[in-house]
């Protein structure tokens, strides 16, 4: 069952080729395998979830932040509803921890508040705005919303600014680790017959007589009648290859800060965000989110960039996050920061999802412009795309041999001592803690390397096990993980990479490049 990755040659043909192994591509691929095993997933990076998906903030929004009537609003609301069912059997943690939308003195634009008498402003903020938010939610089909008083805000989240006036609680909002979900989806697809090829970049799409014929990659060509374009930031380029484009993806960067879970585990219990009327039109403004593991996360920012590879984080962005959250959470634990990261959203100019079969190249399906709430919408996107794919000829009946269960490898840190003991008896490597911050054992690292979608580099191991995600950021365990990887992959440790080609970790062995004198 294990993927041989680049060692295996590409198949000559496939029923469906999915381009891109992010959360969208993998959701669709997994859904596809319910009906047909003849699916190939192509990913240009060295792991699944290695583009936009990995830097996603893990939020499963309710849809409250989306403009009424847009495709993304509809799919968001639908996707959120489907979530519990969607993750069933995948071995992925999903929790509806709720979102507290806080209305503060600066929730209304200054232009408005400056012109109105203070009691009117107060009335608007306290009485009108929260009800409007709830009503607007209902119109979109979200029923988990309720108005929260100022006192209740502080009872729920004591660290919230005293500038809070009122709030809205959104109980359908949840969190799921985007990369864990995507790995699980990919593995489930592979269990059910899909073939995943990493480090495989699509360079051309052959279209003949108005129909898709084949996908050309850096590693060969696959004949196929159906191509699903879930190429994220590069979806416009891939669509253009088939002459099925007409939209442009313009990358928008989002940076976030992550804090030590031991210090911040109870800092907020639900996600908290500040409501801004016509704030940042293009994002929901970010928030303070407790990850499922308990780390506080602050962000993301939203900055337009030109480069689809620009995942850097600037001093200004860090400053912006600090300023924003010093207001919302005046005592946030600045000193406990353990990581800063950024990722790129992949919106189109129109800012809505572009999902549909091309009329220029039959068999070509665009799943583009998927930005937030793409993670929340994933189940609904998969559902919608399946509808299109059935029309293109994918069988409509569920396979008898479809297996919905994807076995999740044990996580030592999450087990009680008795279960830990039993595991260690079976495999003593569960008794050797490699990552002391996150309590990740040697066995878990080994499992990651031999997983259904195997980890072949340090970051891939990290996404599967949390090794190096803690406060020391791999300072103690980095070398050890590289060594385990090398042994398990059967390659010299000097060939281990952080995140695929070019990201070498060691320059060589000692004494190998001392200067000749």
């Amino acid at each position, binding site marked *: 069952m294990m993927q041989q990755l680049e060692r295996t040659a590409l198949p000559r043909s496939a029923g469906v080729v999915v381009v891109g192994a992010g959360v969208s591509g993998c959701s669709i691929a997994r859904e596809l395998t319910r009906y047909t095993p003849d699916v190939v997933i192509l990913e240009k990076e060295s792991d699944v979830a290695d583009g936009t998906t990995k830097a996603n903030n893990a939020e499963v929004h309710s849809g409250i932040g989306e403009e009424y009537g847009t495709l993304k609003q509809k799919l968001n609301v639908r996707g959120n509803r489907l979530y519990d069912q969607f993750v069933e059997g995948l071995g992925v943690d999903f929790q509806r921890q709720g979102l507290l939308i806080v209305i503060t003195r600066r929730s209304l634009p200054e232009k408005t508040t400056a012109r109105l008498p203070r009691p009117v402003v107060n009335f608007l903020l306290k009485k009108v705005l929260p009800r409007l938010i709830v009503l607007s939610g209902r119109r979109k089909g979200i029923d988990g919303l309720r108005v929260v008083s100022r006192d209740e805000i502080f009872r729920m989240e004591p660290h919230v600014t005293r500038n809070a006036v009122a709030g809205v609680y959104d109980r359908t909002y949840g969190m799921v680790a985007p990369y864990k979900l995507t790995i699980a989806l990919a593995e489930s697809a592979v269990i059910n017959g899909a073939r995943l090829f990493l480090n495989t970049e699509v360079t051309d799409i052959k279209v003949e007589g108005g129909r898709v014929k084949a996908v050309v990659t850096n590693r060969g060509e696959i004949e196929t009648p159906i191509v699903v374009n879930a190429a994220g930031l590069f979806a416009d380029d891939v669509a253009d290859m088939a002459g099925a484009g007409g939209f442009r993806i313009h990358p928008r960067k989002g940076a976030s800060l992550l804090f030590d879970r031991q210090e911040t585990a109870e800092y907020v219990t639900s996600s908290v965000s500040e409501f801004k009327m016509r704030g940042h039109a293009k994002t929901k403004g970010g928030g303070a989110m407790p990850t499922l593991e308990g780390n506080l996360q602050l962000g993301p920012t939203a900055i337009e960039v030109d480069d689809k590879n620009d995942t850097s984080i*600037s001093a200004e962005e860090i400053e912006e996050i600090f300023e924003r959250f010093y207001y919302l959470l005046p005592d946030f634990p600045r000193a406990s920061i353990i990581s800063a990261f950024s990722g790129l959203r992949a919106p189109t100019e129109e800012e809505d999802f572009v999902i549909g079969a091309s009329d220029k190249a039959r068999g070509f399906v665009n799943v583009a412009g998927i930005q937030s709430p793409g993670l929340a919408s994933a189940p609904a996107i998969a559902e919608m795309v399946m509808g299109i794919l059935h029309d293109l000829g994918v069988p409509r009946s569920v396979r008898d041999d479809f297996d919905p269960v994807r076995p999740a490898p044990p996580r030592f840190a999450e087990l009680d001592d008795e279960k830990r003991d039993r595991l260690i008896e079976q495999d003593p490597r569960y008794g050797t803690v490699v990552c002391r911050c996150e309590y990740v054992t040697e066995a878990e690292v080994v499992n990651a390397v031999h997983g259904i979608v195997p980890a072949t580099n340090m970051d891939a191991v990290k996404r599967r096990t949390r090794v190096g995600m803690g406060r020391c950021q791999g300072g103690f365990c*980095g070398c050890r993980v590289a060594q385990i990887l090398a042994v398990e992959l059967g390659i010299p440790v000097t060939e281990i990479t*952080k995140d695929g080609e070019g990201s070498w970790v060691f*320059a060589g062995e*000692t004494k190998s490049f001392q200067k000749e004198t």
Partner: protein
Amino acid sequence: MKQTRKPELAVIGAGPAGLGAALAATEAGLKDVMLIERDIELGGILPQCIHDGFGSIVFKEVLTGPQYAQRYIDEVERANIDVLLNTMVLDMGADRRITAVNATDGIIEIEPRSVVLAMGCRERTRHQILIPGFRPAGVIMAGAAQRDINIEGLMPGRKMVILGSGDIGLIMARRFTLEGAEVEGVYEIMDHPGGLTRNVVQCLNDFDIPLHLSHGATFIHGRKRVEAVSVAAVDENLKPIKETERLVECDTLVLSVGLIPENELSKRAGIALDQATNGPFVDERMETSIDGIFACGNVVNVFDLVDYVTHSAETAGRGAAEYVLEGRKREKPVKVTPGRNVFYVVPQYVSDIGRDIDFYFRVQHPERAVRTRILVGGEPIESKKHRMVRPPEMIKQGTKPADFADKRAVSEITVEVVPGEE
């Protein structure tokens, strides 16, 4: 799960602090001492410190790290100490109950009569100082690089920029050079070096490696592997001066930007921590806020000499033995207050003035021609001359019971730096 073990003392961590504490406790009469170490060997960080400069106070000799460690390891092996290697302590409660794990015994429950915390410290990362830029391979902490080279035999890069002039960074600048890597320079955000003067001289000056004071890193370039680092001079508020920014090509950024005592277990147990040291509050016996739990070495505060770590460990080990054998109750402890130009003092409390006490402290800023004084109730009892005091160089100053002889009621102890030779 095996039977609960009930040693007289459990020492967590077998670096110089843990080794010293376990031995001192044995010498003071404990028969059942357990030493728990997560690594595959004893010695902690010392085995990777192959440079010399260790032991000049304790042994009156200049030793390398491995040599220094070996002296204690040999003694621990001779003494009847129960050593658990490859064993990670997962949890500790306020009742001193410890849960640990290893591959052979599985989960281990320990209910010791006393505990010495000796977990050492970890290195500050790029994110804790928030260096902007990409997150490529090739950003590494100096201590991790030291381990790669000296223990694992692996070179983390070819052309390095070192950020921060802490001792490990300085020592690694020399080590990289000796291994044939190029060190472009060391950049230090403060206007004075972070490490000991002898290391600046022996590791940088002797190898013509430039030290750029008042400089910081402003951006890490390279998507897959470090390709360059932007550096800039900083103003008096430590903010980069844009016009001075320049690009330095390199494949590795080495960070030596501070150490943080590893007190996650202490926090789990609910031990009170000092925000200045990031370690537990301790009294003169190195006993923490919880009776029977002692702490020593870099978990208490980052010492700059291993000899001081050993001293604190011996105090803690003897303290634990005394606690177990005599069951001493602590009297009302007296607070030790950092006075003028003193950043922090260890111990932070004195429970018993009837013994020799060593105070370890750091100054806030460099100062010339000063005296350091220990005051009781505002009256100096101990005073020492210094030509120069600097934050990286810890000062040790002791008191004897006789110093307190004419003090009837001791309610406050202050440590301060005052100008002048008197």
